[in-house]
């Protein structure tokens, strides 16, 4: 196996909770699975530079974004990661187009607008450019948030329970949609979820979190067959 694309080692002590994880992933879609409060979202926020670990190391391909031993901790603005928040965090005072165009990208305004149009077409958002977030449906908001994160051509996509607010049929179609866009926008994706079915459908490798630690990693089927702990067994049941 080639060397991992993303290497993560994080430790942070909080009152009553310690996150202590180390894992890596290939150019793939990997799910972080766990109950709420297990440290999955915190891991994403540390990857994005929104929370500083006590000690840690984050490397994506040949670039180091965090290395506490060497005093490296790049701010979120300097990390080319797309981030889709659990509640999507669309800017309510901006239209769909202005939301998607908001990010800072290394391209001309013209190129940005072309890419915005391309993403909107690809994501079925045609005709919604001048609508406001509160005027569109939940699934459309979801796709706007994804388009906004992808506009800047990120090197890594971070998804924090992106489909948890949707009802079941929509959630299923969004999963298929995510698999489709991975074909047209190939980039490593790290997705946080507490839904084993979702993790199993989307990824061939799952990292299971339990109380701030990793309790198991591997193929969804292997985890289903041999859960490493009672908590994991409950999670995959």
């Amino acid at each position, binding site marked *: 196996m080639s060397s991992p694309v993303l290497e993560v080692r994080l430790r942070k002590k909080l009152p009553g909770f310690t996150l202590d994880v180390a894992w890596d992933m290939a150019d793939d879609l990997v799910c972080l699975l766990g109950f709420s409060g297990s440290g999955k979202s915190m891991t994403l*926020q540390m990857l*994005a*530079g*929104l929370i500083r670990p006590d000690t840690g190391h984050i490397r994506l391909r040949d670039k180091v974004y965090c290395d506490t031993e060497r005093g490296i901790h790049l*701010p*979120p*603005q300097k*990390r080319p*990661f*797309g*981030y889709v*928040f659990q*509640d999507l*965090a669309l*800017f*309510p*005072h901006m239209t769909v187009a202005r939301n998607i165009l*908001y*990010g*800072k*990208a290394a391209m001309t305004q013209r190129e940005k607008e072309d890419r915005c149009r391309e993403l909107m077409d690809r994501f079925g958002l045609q005709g919604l450019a001048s609508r*406001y977030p509160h005027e569109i449906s939940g699934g459309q908001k979801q796709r706007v948030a994804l388009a*906004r*994160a992808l506009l*800047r051509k990120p090197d890594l996509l971070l998804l924090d329970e992106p489909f948890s607010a949707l009802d079941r049929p929509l959630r299923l179609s969004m999963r298929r949609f995510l698999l489709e866009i991975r074909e047209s926008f190939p980039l490593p994706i790290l997705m946080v979820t507490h839904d084993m079915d979702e993790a199993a459908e989307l990824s061939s490798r799952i990292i299971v979190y339990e109380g701030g630690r990793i309790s198991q990693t591997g193929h969804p089927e292997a985890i289903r067959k041999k859960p490493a702990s009672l908590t994991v067994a409950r999670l995959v049941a």
Partner: protein
Amino acid sequence: MEPSFLFSLRLSLQVALIATLLVLLFGLPLAYLLARRDFRGKEVLDVLLTLPLVLPPTVTGYYLILLFGRRGLIGGPLYAWTGWSIMFTWQAAVLASFVVALPLMIKTARSAMESVDATLIHASFTLGRKEWETALRVILPLSSRGILAGTVLSFARAMGEFGATLMVAGNLPGRTDTLPIAIYSSSASGEWTSAHLMVALMTLVCGLLLYIANRSTAKKGKGP
């Protein structure tokens, strides 16, 4: 000659307008600092900036004399250097109005900025936008209703400023007699006709401002 009540109305509007512009200029950065940053002495700064809201205006005026008077901490060197003192000028009325109106802006703008969803700010950061870009494009627009309310309240407070203004700008007819001060003079000397007229004017202007403030804070159909 211009009737004196018209002069007072014009002066009051001029003083309140300039004071409000200064309140916006200084109040918004201060509100942002208090809402978004943690630093040593933050609570002390907050108390200092809020004091003029609760102190009797004469006490605020007294402090302004200590600071800006001809022998004041700032006014002294200024007078020695330029031969000019702000005391008993219309600019002093602006200063007094500014100081008493500033806390109103800081309070309303700060709470509006604090209520902006932190995830939106994080989203802006992860989209590559620096703090100042985020402040201008996300935090300010989403606080606009609070800022507008703070602006109207500040203007109204500046229009109605009496105590501190009297201490630092005095009551010089045709020079520093703003509407509230002219009303005081008229009623003190029994000139009831002009007092009636100015009281009615003042009530009208302040009522109108309150109406605008209420309208601007009421939830509209569009937006967050």
